[in-house]
C-alpha cells in the first residue's frame, strides 16, 4: 500500500504559510521576513510566531502525519486547512483552488463536502445520540430523511459500534466516543479527513486498536488523511509522508523510513534515538536495490517485513544474505551487515537534505 503512493496527485498544497499571533501580525511578518527569530519576536515585538514559511504537499490517498511537540504549531497548521484559523500570509490550495479566497458560502461548502475533522477531545454533541452525532455532517448539509440514519448506522457498524446507536456520548468510554468521531467524519463522505491528535487522549492499548482501525479503513477507503500527533511511534506507524515541525517551522519532511535513516537535524536525531528501529525499519529501506542474482543466499524475505522479523529468521547470523521479494519479483538483496548497521542511530546526514 505504501509504495505506489508517491505518484498520488497533490490534494492540498500549503505554500509559504505564515501565522503570527498578536495585535499587528502584518508588521510582525515583515520583521520575520527580515530574519527576526521566534524568541526575539516575542521579546521585542510582543508577537508569537505560530507558523513560519510552511511548504507541504499533501497527496491524495495518503496519510500525511504532521508531528511535533506541544507548541510546535501542528494544531495551528491543521486548522489552516479548513480555515478554522486564517493565516497571516501564504496559500492553502485544495483541489487546485485557493481556499483563502473563499467567501463564507464556499467555505461552508468546503467544510461540509470536502473536509471532515476528528478532534482530540472528540467534540461530540452531548445532547444528541450516537446515531444523530454520526449523521450530523449530512444533516448540516440540509439533507433529511431516513437515509441519513441508515448511512450513519452503516458507518457506526464499520467502526465497531453496532448496538450503541441510542446511547448518548457521555455514556461511552473515550475510545468508543472517538469511534463515533471517526464515524461522523466518514459519514460526511468527504475526500479529506483532518485528524487533530485524534488518539492522544486515549490510553495506549485503545490507541493501538484505533491506529489499526484507521489503517484498516484506509486500505479500503483511500482517503486523504492529515494526521497530527506528538507521538513518534504513532507517526511512524501511520505515516506515508511525515512532516516534523519544531517552533512553527518544518525541520524535515519525507518518507518516514528515510527520515529515520537520514535525519538531518540534531532535534530529529534526539527524537528518534529512543525508538525501536528494528521494529520500524523495513527491509526495503536497508536493502541494496538490484536485480542481480546474489550468491550464497540464505533465503527470501519480503520487502515490507520489518528488520525484527528478519533478525528472527537469521537467528542473529550477520554473515547471511537474503533475496528481497515484492509481489513475487526480486527487487533487491539484503545483507545482514547492512541491517545491523541500520540499527545504530545515524548522525545528521549531509546538509543538502535539510528542508527547513
Amino acid at each position, binding site marked *: 500500500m505504501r509504495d505506489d503512493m508517491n505518484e498520488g496527485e497533490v490534494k492540498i498544497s500549503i505554500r509559504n504559510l505564515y501565522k503570527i499571533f498578536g495585535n499587528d501580525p502584518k508588521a510582525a511578518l515583515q520583521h520575520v521576513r527580515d530574519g527576526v527569530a521566534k524568541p526575539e519576536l516575542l521579546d521585542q515585538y510582543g508577537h508569537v510566531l505560530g507558523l513560519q514559511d510552511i511548504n507541504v504537499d499533501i497527496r491524495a490517498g495518503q496519510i500525511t502525519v504532521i508531528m511535533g511537540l506541544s507548541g510546535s504549531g501542528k494544531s495551528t497548521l491543521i486548522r489552516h486547512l479548513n480555515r478554522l484559523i486564517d493565516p497571516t500570509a501564504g496559500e492553502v490550495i485544495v483541489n487546485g483552488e485557493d481556499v483563502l479566497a473563499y467567501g463564507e458560502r464556499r*467555505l461552508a461548502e468546503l467544510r461540509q463536502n470536502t473536509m471532515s475533522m476528528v478532534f482530540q477531545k472528540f467534540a461530540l454533541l*452531548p445532547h444528541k445520540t450516537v446515531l444523530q452525532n454520526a449523521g450530523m455532517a449530512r444533516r448540516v448539509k440540509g439533507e433529511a430523511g431516513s437515509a441519513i440514519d441508515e448511512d450513519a448506522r452503516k458507518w457506526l457498524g464499520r467502526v465497531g459500534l453496532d448496538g450503541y446507536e441510542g446511547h448518548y456520548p457521555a455514556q461511552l468510554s473515550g475510545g468508543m466516543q472517538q469511534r463515533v468521531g471517526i464515524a*461522523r467524519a466518514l459519514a460526511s463522505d468527504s475526500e479529506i479527513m483532518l485528524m487533530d491528535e485524534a488518539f492522544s487522549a486515549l490510553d495506549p492499548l485503545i490507541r493501538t486498536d484505533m491506529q489499526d482501525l484507521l489503517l484498516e479503513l484506509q486500505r479500503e477507503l483511500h482517503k486523504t488523511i492529515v494526521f497530527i500527533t506528538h507521538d513518534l511511534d504513532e507517526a511512524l506507524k501511520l505515516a506515508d509522508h511525515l512532516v516534523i515541525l519544531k517552533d512553527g517551522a518544518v525541520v524535515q519532511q519525507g518518507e518516514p523510513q528515510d527520515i529515520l535513516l537520514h535525519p538531518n537535524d540534531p532535534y530529529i536525531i534526539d527524537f528518534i534515538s529512543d525508538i525501536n528501529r528494528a521494529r520500524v525499519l523495513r527491509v526495503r529501506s536497508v536493502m541494496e536495490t538490484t536485480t542481480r542474482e546474489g550468491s550464497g543466499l540464505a533465503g527470501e524475505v519480503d520487502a515490507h517485513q520489518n528488520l525484527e522479523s528478519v533478525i528472527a529468521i537469521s537467528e542473529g547470523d550477520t554473515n547471511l544474505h537474503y533475496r528481497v521479494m515484492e509481489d513475487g519479483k526480486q527487487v533487491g538483496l539484503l545483507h545482514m551487515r547492512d541491517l545491523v548497521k541500520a540499527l545504530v542511530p545515524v548522525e545528521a546526514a549531509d546538509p543538502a537534505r535539510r528542508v527547513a
Partner: protein
Amino acid sequence: MATYDGLFEALGLGDWCGGGATGGPMTMAELLARAQGGGTPDGAAEPAVPLLETPFPSLDALNQACGAIPRSRDMTRGVEQGFLAIKDPLKVVLDPITQPLSWMLDLSLEAFQAIPWFIMIPLLIAIAWFSTKKAGVTLLVAFSFLFMAFINYYDDAIQTLSIIFVCTIIAVLLGVPVGIAMSRSNALQRSVIPVLDMLQTLPTFVYLVPLIFLFSVTESKLYGIAIILYAIVPVIRLTDLGIRLVDKDVIEAADAFGMSSRQKLWGVQIPLALPNIMAGVNQTIMMSLAMVVIASLVSAPGLGVKVLAGIRNLELGVGLVAGFCIVLLAVLLDRSTKAALGRIDASDRG
C-alpha cells in the same frame, strides 16, 4: 455674614452674587438653628465661625454667601422640572408601546380569577405533576393551594400568580434574545452589563418613582414594567453566560463541519446553554415574586396588598399570614421550576 463671603469677594464676584442668601422658604434645619441659637437678626454681624466648624463648601453653604448659587432644594427641583419636561414626549412614545402590557395583565387577572377554584387547583396540581414528575413537589403544590384556599387567601394568591405568569413570560421573551445577542457581541455585552448592574442594585422603591410620574397609578402596566425591569436581569445574564460557556471544542467541531451560525445557535449553543437559561428563568420567577409584593404600593393586586394592609393598619395577623403565603408561593414555584429544569438536564444525557 457667611463663611465663604471672603472667597467671592476675593474672586471679584460680589456683584454677580448680588448679596447674601436669597429669600424664599427656609429649610426646617435653618428654622431650628435659628430658634435654638436665639437667632441673629438678618443683616446683623454674625460672630466669626470657629475654624473647626467651617462648613463644607456645599450648595447651601455657598448660597449663604452668594445668592446666585442654587441651594440643594433648587437643584432637586431642577431635576424634577427636567423630568417633567421630558415626561410628555416620553409618554407619547412609551404609552402605546407599553399599552399591550396593561391589557395582558388585566386579561390574565380576569382569566385566572374567572376559572373556578375546583378547576384551577386541580389544573395547577396537574401542571406540577407533568412538568416535574415528582410526587413531593406535586404534593407541596396541592397542599399549598388547598391551605391558602382554606384560609381565604386563595384569591390573592391567584392574583399574584397571574401577575408573575405574565411578567415572567414577557421577561423571558425579551431577556433570552438580549442574552443571545450579548453572547455574540463583546461590545454589546460591555454596554449592557452596566445597565443590568444598575437594575439589580437600584433599591426596589426607586424604580417606582419615575414610573409613577410617567404613568397613572391606576394602570396595570405601571407595576408590570417595574416587575419586568427588576426580574429580567438574571435571565439575560444567564443566557449570555450559558452560551459563552458552551464547550469551545464542540463549537469548533460545529464550525469544522460547516454549520451556519443559525444552525450552530439552534442546534448547539442554545441546547447546550439550556440548563443555564432555565436557571435564569427560575431566578426571574423568584425575583418577580419579590417585586410583585413591593409593587402593591402602586396598586398591584395580590398578596402584597394584604402585607401592606398589615403594615398600614397594624394588622399584625393579616401581614404575617400573607407573608407566609408569599413564602409558600416562593417555595413551590422554586421547587417546581427546579424539578422541571432537572428533567431537561437529565434528558440531555439520556
